[in-house]
């Protein structure tokens, strides 16, 4: 379990640096989608691994997936 948390942390840091890097190539719709997709991935990693939502009832998992998905989806449409 401790290993999973450390791996999760490593992925989160990598994604943070990656998103900061790709944000320097602005103007493309693909970049916008990538930034939002990475943000959602990080969001769900923290929720499921650090907050241990992976062990919770599907109701709680569904809520967090839907919430972040809606925010990300609407932002993509607006942008």
């Amino acid at each position, binding site marked *: 379990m401790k290993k999973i948390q450390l791996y999760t942390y490593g992925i989160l840091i990598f994604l943070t640096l990656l*998103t900061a890097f790709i944000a320097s190539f602005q103007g493309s719709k693909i970049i916008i989608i990538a*930034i939002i997709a990475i943000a959602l991935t990080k969001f769900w990693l923290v*929720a499921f691994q650090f907050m241990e939502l992976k062990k919770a*009832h599907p109701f709680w998992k569904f809520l967090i997936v839907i919430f972040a998905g809606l*925010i990300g989806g609407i932002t993509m449409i607006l942008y």
Partner: protein
Amino acid sequence: MLESENKMEKKSFQEEASIDSNNKLETTIDYSKVAYPPGGVLIWIVIYLELVTFGMAILALAYYGSQERELFHESSMKLNRVIGTINTIFLLTSGLFVALGVHAFKAKNHLLAARWFHFAVWGGFGFLVLKMFEYYQKLEAGLTMDSNSFFTFYWLLTAFHWIHVLVGMVILLIIRRNIVKKKAATLIEDVEAGAAFWHMCDLVWLLLYPMLYLLF
């Protein structure tokens, strides 16, 4: 019949003792039940209320950003991305420490758990100090809440989040104190609830960071 149902309910609520692979006594709760998410149902109601509140503000930011693209782009470029990225790393690192602290607490390693929570508080402190430095830079440059609609969102959202991190740090300090003083008497539900609040600060920042610093 009713008595047996009550007993079953009580059993699922109470902590059950089990032996893990290292032969350490570990407390477990049946999280698969809808009424028992990690930290308890009440903290999750608070978390979802907070997320919805921030989420609506983030959508408003995205909407106004789509209406005034040039202004939002120019304003966003005035933010320091390096500071934003370092602050993200501060919160993620602090989040890892809290997760490890909960893990250590469950394994009955109270001293280690208290140490992880101590480190987590320092992570939060680093975030707050760096954010204050960023605020100072913005104020020096004359970028206040009244500058334009982007900076209205920037100040409101980040300051509201800043307060949440501060409150989260106080909660972590109280948990740490309870673990050190009461040890086994500290309830796992309380530790998990405090940890969940701290992670909520992570979650909100993980949405704010790209929206304010990277997207526009």
